[in-house]
């Protein structure tokens, strides 16, 4: 379970800890193009249903950390994984920053650095093995027949694994957590 503790590291930020080019790197990735337009109004955090019940998840804070270049603090932070992708912030951001897109971008980068909650590895393994994110139990398949529902189609696992290979996804999933 991902805790609600704040992003790690010391409270005092050293200038050498900042990567001044991080924001430019991020802004080239689809969904995060407008990261520099965030002027910290706080609409995202104020309207975030998760932030209402969490002491740690603050989308505005995450965006500021990206702008400041606190790359390793952001990417190793547990709070990245608390966005529920409800997209309320995307619809209400006055700067059209697509905050959930920035969060997705940060998660994708975090995964490359070896940070991924266990649940996502389980879902990914299921997709690669069965085509679906959940392995449908045999009891459910029997129940489908009893309820008169048509059988589920066979998945084209070969094609899915080919797509996983060419997108670099297989490599990410095979990599051990560092």
């Amino acid at each position, binding site marked *: 379970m991902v805790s609600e503790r704040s992003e790690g590291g010391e409270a005092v930020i050293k200038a050498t800890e900042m990567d001044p080019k991080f924001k430019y790197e991020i802004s080239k990735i689809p969904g995060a193009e407008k990261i520099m337009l965030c002027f910290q109004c706080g609409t995202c955090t104020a309207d975030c249903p998760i932030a209402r019940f969490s002491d740690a998840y603050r989308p505005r804070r995450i965006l500021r950390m990206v702008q400041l270049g606190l790359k390793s603090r952001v990417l190793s932070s547990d709070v990245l994984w608390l966005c529920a992708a409800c997209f309320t912030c995307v619809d209400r951001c006055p700067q059209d920053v697509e905050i959930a897109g920035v969060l997705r971008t940060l998660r994708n980068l975090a995964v490359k650095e070896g940070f991924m909650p266990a649940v996502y590895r389980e879902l990914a393994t299921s997709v690669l093995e069965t085509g679906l994110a959940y392995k449908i139990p045999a009891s459910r398949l029997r129940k489908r027949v009893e309820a008169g*529902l048509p059988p589920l189609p066979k998945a084209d696992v070969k094609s899915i694994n080919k797509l996983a290979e060419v997108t670099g996804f297989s490599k990410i999933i095979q990599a051990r957590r560092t």
Partner: protein
Amino acid sequence: MAELRYLLFLGCAIPYRVSAYEISTRKVAKKIGIELIEMPEYNCCGLPMEPISYDIMLALAARNLCIAEQQGLNMMALCPGCAGTLHKVNKILKEDKKLRDAVNRYLKEVGLEFKGTIEVKHFIRVLADDVGFERIKGTIERPLSALKVAEHNGCHVLRPAKYIGFDDPENPVMLKRLIEITGAKCLDYMDETECCGAPIVGVNEKIPLQLARNKLSHIRDVGAQAMITICPFCHMMFDVNQPRIERMFDEAFGLSVLHYPQLLGLAMGFSPAELGFDELRVDTSKLLSAIT
């Protein structure tokens, strides 16, 4: 009227553990005259993989879209996560040539090409846009005028507005109108459009259960006899997890949570058994005795 034929996209969560939604949808669709074709060799819509890799999400979604293109049919999805993802990817691939070329390079490896010839809609969007309220009204045989219910839309049917473009995400009315066709009254309540929290259950359970509890309290407070959902994940949060929420907060709700087609199906005259009521966790006997 346009032909009401769709490839049915079931996704993962519905065959995994939310059969009642599928059973009741098939019943009401048939009665309305919507023809549902089974989707061959489909895969995960891509959404659950988006946090890991945007590229695999695009590739998985696009592969499903290509299969629908080959069949020459529009898609109807029951899960808002699937519908939202497929709708969004379909839209951005149609509009963004650079991205489309990149995704088509992936798809070429599996003998496919995205052409952009079909549309994807969520079930309630099919009802609202393609079927129309009048036609649905014509199928009602037993108006549920004794019922007061509350709706929960589910985020991905409405947001992000710039990709989805359906209803008003700040003040949605389509599901309410579809509910009121059954004769039931749909009540307003506080934080109606707020998320159920389900997407983060796998990493943190405390926050989503608090969110769900908040919504259940607001719905109880306005006096609704049932909650109506259109998403398998929202349904699990409010129905399957309701006993846990009650224990966690030492609070009783006993609020029946129906999939919208179950409510519509009752109004069409189907029996609870025909609509998969036996799968619901929270007891519905009180609700059902109110309408018989």
